[in-house]
């Protein structure tokens, strides 16, 4: 974890008596795993399960009144995590999308100059999430002013 962010999380954990809930992903040899909610492919050609969704985590997230999402990369792990969360929300109650807040100034897309640039894909994904009812805010906007946040 990035030192400065680890420090902030540690400070938070002590001040609030709340340890971080780490979610580890990505070590299955047979599938990419951008989203923390689900690997890309869950079974092999014969239909045998090779990986599974993190259903427990989805349930935990949706029990909160608000879920604020940031991190890297906006075009990959962030986008596919939100996309999977939106799919799960779609099977439960579409109004749950209003609980989700995306911190657009704390996430960036993969850009390797002259090789790849996923900026447009990332922005299109965020537009789709916004259209589905999720909120997009900046970290510098006062939290108490965010729509739906009742502190």
């Amino acid at each position, binding site marked *: *974890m*990035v*030192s400065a*962010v*680890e*420090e*902030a*999380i*540690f*400070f*938070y*954990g*002590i*001040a609030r*008596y*709340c340890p*971080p*809930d*780490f*979610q*580890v*992903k990505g*070590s*299955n*040899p*047979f*599938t*990419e795993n951008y989203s*923390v909610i689900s690997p890309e*492919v869950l079974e*092999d*050609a014969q239909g045998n399960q090779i990986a599974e969704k993190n259903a427990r985590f989805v349930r935990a997230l949706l*029990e*909160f009144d*608000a*879920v*604020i*999402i*940031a*991190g*890297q*990369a*906006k075009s*990959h*792990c*962030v986008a596919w*995590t939100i996309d999977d969360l939106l799919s799960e929300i779609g099977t439960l109650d579409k109004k749950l999308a209003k609980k989700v807040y995306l911190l657009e100034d*704390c996430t*960036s*897309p993969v*850009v390797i*100059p002259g*090789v790849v640039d996923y*900026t447009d894909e990332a922005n299109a994904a965020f537009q789709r999430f916004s259209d589905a009812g999720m909120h997009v805010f900046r*970290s*510098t906007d006062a*939290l108490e002013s965010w729509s739906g*946040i*009742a*502190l």
Partner: protein
Amino acid sequence: MGQVWRVPYQERAEEAKKWATQYKIETASQDRFRICLLLVDVQNTFCIPEFELYVGGRSGTGAVDDNRRLCEFIYRNLDVITQICPTMDTHQSMQIFHSIFLVNERGEHPTPFTLISIEDVEKGVWKFNPKVAAGLNIDVDYGQKFLHYYTQQLQAGGKYDLTIWPYHAML
């Protein structure tokens, strides 16, 4: 922000306790409106310039600037964030999206950021590397069939093609 350093845990713990007392900050379990902060892969490999898969955005300073703002956000809203959930990407060398998993007719592996479509697999542009099989406890035929099925599934799901990433987030 863009560097790796030792976190002075003991000092920060003492400061955090003082801070909580001084500003009468309650424990998170007391929050009535419960806010989760989900932090996706805020890891050195993605966030530190010169690291394997640094996410620079178009500005070139993307993840570094993001994390400066993120730290400020955490400290500023420390009293109302109920839970922080950091995700951690964890990889090993022999995974489907790393170079060594695939090989061409000449015995070469794909370079990072190569995209591999189902057509590439069907034409034999890239094949499952048979030398990987034993280490993953599968047979070569299964590996090749799985690669075909995998690229087909990605295409059917509207996802990006199989992407070969630089070795990163290594355990």
